[in-house]
């Protein structure tokens, strides 16, 4: 409906708004690819480590959350960047 609305009225402001939304989506989506894979690797290896050495599970879990936090930050930069793009 929104798109029809935009197309029907053809107002430059609204078109820009629509494109901005598309841009936001692309920015966040692209930014989430790498961290998604990265978090998968981090968690996967952490699970391997925990399975091999269950007695070290606590330490591995803490380190895993740290690794997730570092990796996730990139996706969150993308998330924030999508607002910057919009602004």
């Amino acid at each position: 409906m929104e798109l029809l609305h935009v197309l029907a009225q053809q107002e430059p402001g609204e078109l820009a708004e629509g494109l901005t939304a598309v841009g936001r989506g692309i920015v966040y989506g692209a930014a989430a690819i790498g961290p998604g894979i990265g978090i998968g690797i981090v968690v996967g290896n952490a699970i391997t480590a925990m399975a091999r050495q269950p007695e070290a599970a606590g330490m591995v879990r803490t380190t895993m959350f740290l690794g997730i936090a570092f990796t996730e930050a990139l996706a969150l930069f993308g998330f924030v960047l999508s607002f910057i793009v919009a602004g």
Partner: protein
Amino acid sequence: MRTRRLLATLGLATIVGLGGADVASAVEGAPPPGEGGAPPAEPIEHSAEECIHILEGGGAIDDCQEAPNPILPELNELIWGAASFLVLLGLLSKLALPGLRQSMDARSERIRNSLDEAERARTEAEAVLAGYQRQLADAKAESGRIIEEARQSADSVKADLLARAESEAEEQRRRNAEQIAAERDRVMSELQSQVAVLAIEMAERVVESNLDRDANIRLIENYINAVGNGSGGPDGAGGQKAGAGSRPRQAPEGNPS
């Protein structure tokens, strides 16, 4: 069960309802449109609403495109946030945390002390126990020594006594033998002296009572029986002689012992 489920449903519904209300209030929280603005029947989009407000505030039409960016901090929130943080940090580190840490330290100190105390008591008890055990072992050794000593002295006493008894017995035996020998000697010598007397007497009697042959024979036999080693005791007149004759017969019995 049912009431609990009902309560849970109610609670969740409340959360959802409040959530909806929350969003709604946030929406309503936006600056309201102007008093004499658009007619209420016509729905106004939020962006339009904001734009109207901006325009009323004396903004240009381009400002409508620039929505307030959520990544820029609001000054008032920054100030209040910093103030809250610092006030909380100050309050906690001045008023609350020292007490908490003090009580925790006191507790761990106390636990450490009681552990040390227990350890000390245990060491002490072990020392005491070792002492007792040593004393016990000493006492055991002492008693063993005493018993051994007693046994040894008893042994020696026994050996002593045995030796003495044996020597005494030997002495006794020797004395007996001597006595017996002396007695025999005496008896023999007495006998010898008496044999002569008796022979003379016998001769006298033979001569005196030479009445019959039978009497003579019997007399001689009696005499021989009385003097010699005759097994059958002399009867009749020979009885008195037999008493004398029994004495030398003891010597052969005493000797073998």
